[in-house]
């Protein structure tokens, strides 16, 4: 149970920081996404993100910094296994599930649904 509390607090905190950035700076949500994923890659490369994942589980992996972390760790693991080629294949291999799901379900949603005005 204490694990879920940690997930909630860390995940919530990452989101609250994002909200503060949206409201207080000129960063649009799209830029927040880019900033978070890039920050995740860089922090992960320094080795600081893995302890956070161990501490907070999905609280660290579900936010986009976690996506960046998976990309970075994938690239590093790829290099360990296949050398320089792994730098290119590793990141996408590690995150393929999420990306393919977003593309496939995005397409599926477009097949099934139509965009509606917000509150008509």
């Amino acid at each position: 149970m204490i694990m879920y509390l940690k997930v909630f607090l860390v995940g919530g905190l990452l989101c609250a920081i994002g909200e503060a950035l949206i409201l207080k700076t000129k960063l649009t949500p799209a830029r927040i996404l880019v900033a978070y994923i890039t920050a995740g890659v860089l922090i992960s490369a320094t080795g600081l993100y893995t302890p956070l994942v161990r501490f907070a589980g999905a609280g660290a992996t579900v936010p986009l910094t976690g996506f960046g972390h998976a990309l970075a760790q994938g690239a590093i693991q790829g290099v360990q296994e296949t050398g320089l080629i792994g730098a290119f294949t590793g990141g996408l291999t590690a995150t393929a599930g999420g990306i393919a799901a977003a593309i496939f379900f995005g397409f599926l949603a477009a097949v099934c649904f139509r965009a509606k005005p917000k509150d008509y």
Partner: protein
Amino acid sequence: MENNKQSSARAAKENYAALVKRLTPKSKLAQGCLRAFWVGGAICMLGQAIADAGAVWLDLNSAAAQTLASMTLVFLTALLTGLGIFDRIAKYGGAGTVVPITGFANAMVSPAMEFKPEGWVLGTGAKLFTIAGPVLVYGISASVVVGILYYFIRW
């Protein structure tokens, strides 16, 4: 003379910016952050629950369980976006829905639906990446750079 004109135009713009700032209502920072906090936290807890369930029932290792959690959240986002519910949650939760992987998924699903009238190829197919594309460009590029550095330095 020309310099004077320029500097007085700049001063007028600065005065005007101050007036606009005074008369434009502010977003509520504390309220926004609090909502983002609990909505984002709740989404992460859901992710943890899915990962735990995958580990227990499907006997997945931790990496696979994480992938399952991501994919399920992406699926739920696509479904809620399609049903026209996600944007309402996002309106309340703000960054609480943007920062988790749900924000990435919504950024792909919503243009795919929006541009459907322009056809399956140049509408849905091409526009799927209009908002989320940069995330992949910068995320993947950064990871490639990290991989190359790691190859040469091995920290």
